[in-house]
């Protein structure tokens, strides 16, 4: 048996090495595929349009960022683009929406976990039920409501509804069920703390891991949102970054260098955030799928 064992072992490890090589090749191929468009975007942003239009370029132009600056000047001078404005609008909307989402979702989840009241189960069931129902289906009604309230071309329709985010409530409640012990709340009550004090000062810090994950996803969702803003925001000064970017798809914009710079400008912030938070994001995605 031992005799037969050795060559077998040998071939097995050889097979594994072979398999590993294939796996590495495939994995590296897809990893490159994932970043090459962004690489192409970044590189071409540094070139002048003439070169971009006639060459396939994968390296930057070393001219002391002259072309890059020219491209930026083009983007900044176009009355219809206003990238800086779009960035600002997106930042305001996403930040406010995220803060509202996480705070009120935590509040709701806490209310549903800690207190006993009539209709609690029904409400939770409804929240879970509507979690996956997209908001896009009521867009005609939503538009009419916003029109009646005079909120078209303002940021409010994109910020206020963030208070009610069923999926965020669901995930935070899942977390609370497993990690909030009722003794803490009772101890706090005995010490004479009010319910809101207990929530804000004692329980909210406990929820931080869940809240942070949800904040990241809420922010990304709001930052990347296109459907509702494209219908509600028509004024250039109110448009968000994705709407500005969408303007670049027009065939009439032939300054390719500037187009790639504009695209890069919308990608870079997200890539930077992602670089720092990718571990949490990936954990969040994994947790979302398995849902323990």
């Amino acid at each position: 048996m031992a005799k037969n064992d050795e060559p077998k072992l040998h071939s097995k490890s050889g097979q594994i090495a072979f398999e590993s090589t294939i796996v590495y090749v495939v994995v590296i191929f897809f990893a490159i595929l994932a970043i090459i468009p962004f690489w192409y975007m970044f590189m071409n942003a540094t070139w002048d349009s003439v070169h971009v239009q006639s060459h396939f370029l994968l390296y930057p132009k070393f001219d002391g960022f002259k072309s890059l600056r020219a491209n930026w000047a083009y983007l900044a001078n176009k009355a219809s683009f206003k990238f800086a404005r779009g960035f600002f609008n997106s930042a305001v909307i996403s930040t406010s929406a995220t803060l509202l989402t996480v705070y009120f979702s935590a509040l709701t989840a806490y209310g549903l976990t800690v207190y006993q009241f009539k209709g609690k189960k029904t409400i939770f069931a409804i929240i879970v039920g509507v979690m996956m129902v997209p908001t896009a289906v009521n867009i005609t009604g939503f538009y009419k409501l916003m029109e009646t309230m005079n909120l078209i071309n303002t940021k409010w329709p994109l910020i206020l509804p963030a208070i009610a985010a069923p999926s965020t409530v669901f995930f935070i409640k899942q977390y609370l069920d497993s990690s909030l012990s009722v003794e803490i709340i009772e101890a706090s009550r005995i010490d004479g703390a009010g319910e809101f004090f207990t929530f804000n000062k004692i329980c909210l810090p406990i929820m931080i891991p869940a809240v942070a994950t949800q904040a990241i996803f809420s922010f990304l969702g709001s930052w990347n949102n296109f459907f509702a803003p494209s219908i509600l925001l028509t004024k250039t000064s109110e448009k968000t970054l994705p709407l500005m970017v969408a303007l670049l798809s027009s065939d009439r914009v032939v300054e390719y260098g500037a187009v790639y710079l504009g695209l890069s400008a919308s990608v870079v912030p997200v890539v930077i955030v992602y670089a720092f938070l990718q571990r949490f994001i990936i954990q969040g995605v994994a947790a979302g799928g398995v849902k323990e």
Partner: protein
Amino acid sequence: MARGTNNGGHKGLSYTKFGYIFIAPFVIVYTIFSLYPLLTTFWYSVCNPKSNEADFWGFGNKDVFYDRYLDLTDRAIYPDQESFEKATNISMADYQLIRDYFKVQDNADDYLSEEYLGDIINIGTKDNGSGVTLSADTIKVLEQAKNDKSMLPLTESYIADPENNAYTDMFNWKDTYNDPQAFSEDNVGKIYNTLDAIVNADASEDTETEDNLNQSIIVMDDGFLDIIDALSDDSEFTPEQKAIVAKIAENIGVDDLKAYFEGVKSGDNTIDDASFYYAVRNLNTATSSFIWEDENGEMQKGVFEIKLTSAETYLQKNVWVSTITSLNTYSDFPAYSTREKSLYADKDAILADLTTLSNAGIITVETYKVEGDKITLVKPEGREGVEYTANFLQMIEKESDAVLGDGNAAIGQLKNYYDSVVFTDFSKDNAPASPVVEANNAGYKIEQYTTINGELDIDKYLEYKTAVGLKDALSYDNYVRMDNEMKAENKRQAEAIIATNYQDPAVREYGSAVDEELVDFDTNVFSFDVDKKGEGLDDRITVEGNTLQEQLDFLTPIYEDHLVKDADIINGPVKGDDGKRIEYRDGLKGCKGTDRFQIRSAYYDVYLRLLNAERQIKNPTGILSQVDSTKEYIFTGGENFRLVFTDKTTRDTVFGSFVSTGVLWIMGFIPQILLALLLSNWFTDNRLHLKGLNLMKALMYLPNVITAVTIAVFFRRIFNYSSGGSMSASQIVLRKLTGHGYNFFASPWASRWLVAFINFWMWYGNTMIVLIAGITSINESLFESAQIDGANSFQTYTKITLPLLRPILLYTFVSSLIGGLQMYDIPKNIINTSALINFNGTRIYSLRTVLMYVNEIAFGAGNNKQIGRASAVSLILFCVTTVLSILIFYMMRDKDAAKAAKAKKMARKAGK
């Protein structure tokens, strides 16, 4: 796991109210921003509004609704008087009275309001310095009209004596009234009062007065917008103009100026500094700059800049307050405001006053001399001073126009109203019939029943309807009857057409052949061959024959001869290939391209008429569906749903978009799930000892966090097609490799693959991470026992991993499907209108998803929006996603238990 909740039970009871308080914000916001709009959407789907501004008319008064919005005299409904009277049982003359009523009322709604009459009365009673006011009679008539809200007094005086009536009086008065001097003085008074208010006001009122000051001086004209347009694009300017802009920029700062111009253009900024307006306006009309003689006796060209420093600036400096106060002593300013002194009486005096204001820092009076790109300041002296005094007055005059605007507009609207419903020219015998006069002749004073409060008064209308005796004849029941009769008639006609003309099955065969080819023809031939478009238009082929069959007989041989034969030229080599295209053009010389197109479309028309007749048999159109509901709409029941499910074109378009969405999703999902399965298996395989997995995972997930719009635009740009000049990345590479380019967006399937690829590329990382989490959560001992039992890795995977992954796979599948149904960002930003595809005989856009369709018909360009149908389609989408959500809900509900049970079962199976 659930310890917290269970223990909280009994204690929590006393805190019940906090439970409600804590979830209240969520419930309230969800109700307002999600449930209420959803209910509105439900509501829309059973109505038929055609614009976002349309209001609900009400459940009752349906007859009034149709009276108002359905014009039965329309020749498209009843071709002649005879058929009209036969169908309605009403004489045309009687019915015309109804139409006349709404013409008068709708024009009153469009042009007049109580507010307008109020404006005229207000301005007309005020002496403007010219000594002319509206006559007491006119005012009386106006007051009377305003009080009983009927147009009767105004029109009666007009019709009785067109030469001497309230309207003519108003018009004459308007001419004398429009005296700039009087208004300029008025405005100086205003400025004075504002300044006075600044001096005497509480600090809290400062902002308000400051606004007044800014607004009272500035007027905007169209030329200004053009200039800003030109400025931002840096097109040709004369050196003079550039110098002036530079001068202003020097004072304000270039970036601020730029931002400011752009702000003005987009409507964010108001023009709050007169100098901007003035200098820039001078840019536009170089001749408006002045010419003067310099000390050497030479003529010089100059431009004025008169600057009113912003109120804010001097409010910040207390010293100005005392300066303004001292104005009363140093200048005649207060006298202008009370009209004791005329602005125009003594120009030297006003120059002195302006100088005082200038010295006080309230206005800056400067003259610039422009030579080439050099600007020098010329001190205000002598006659130059007089010049810019006049300019200052000009500015005030412009402002006067704006103030006058209200009264002018009101009288103008009144004129429009008269023009539209009363005779405009009494001297002509053959003047067109006017509704008001016609009704008068028939003995009904329409004006008595119409109102000027901006909307139809239903009670008054019903009075009128009773008076003309049509109350019963034009009932809703009657409308429904006419609708049904029209439907029956349309159906009968369609059957007749088909019976007489379309027995030949070849019609359909040819028709659908053209149908298929037209897609290619439109996109490939007609679009790039634009330069040929004009050719041959003069000698278009005239289709001979009276009946459709005769026309067909005429067309068929031509069609076969010229079009079918060279189908290989049209279909084969065209697509974006330069060499072949030349070949194709040479081939075209035999028969002109436009002729081909004409023949083709004529032939196709015949086929379309066949389709139309068939449609009429299935869903005949009546009269009620032709109502314009852009302003008001009524309850229509299941009409929208009926259309979506039974009308062929609508159904094909709607379900075509569902199918397109599904196809796009499945084309991306299959490779996505397969790759995710493969990668997740490798990544969890301990035997392989892979390193750097976290980095790889992070990279593969990256596309998922990037804005989808950015990615779509990126792909749109790199796959763009153009024959030369500016080439996109894909074309550069393709040309290097194959010698010629390829137009991805002209092909429906190429563009679909592109979208599918983007979806795959963005989402496989996500799916992979979910699956890895799923595999890691499987009990390790199961794999070990399988290994001990001698299962190879393939067997382990198919017998243990896959079955245990099934719930997660199902979850991924359903949630991806729900997400896929909402697909919008990517196809929307990739869309090209040329890629059409045949769906069940209807041509649809290959990339148009459900949400894109909803968005287009509900929010697209044009007045005739189909909010009702859009809502119905949204609701279908809602139902589909809800069903899928419920599925997910059940999957997640008893997951732990189900999982445990399954795991046990699997373990037993694997153990065998």
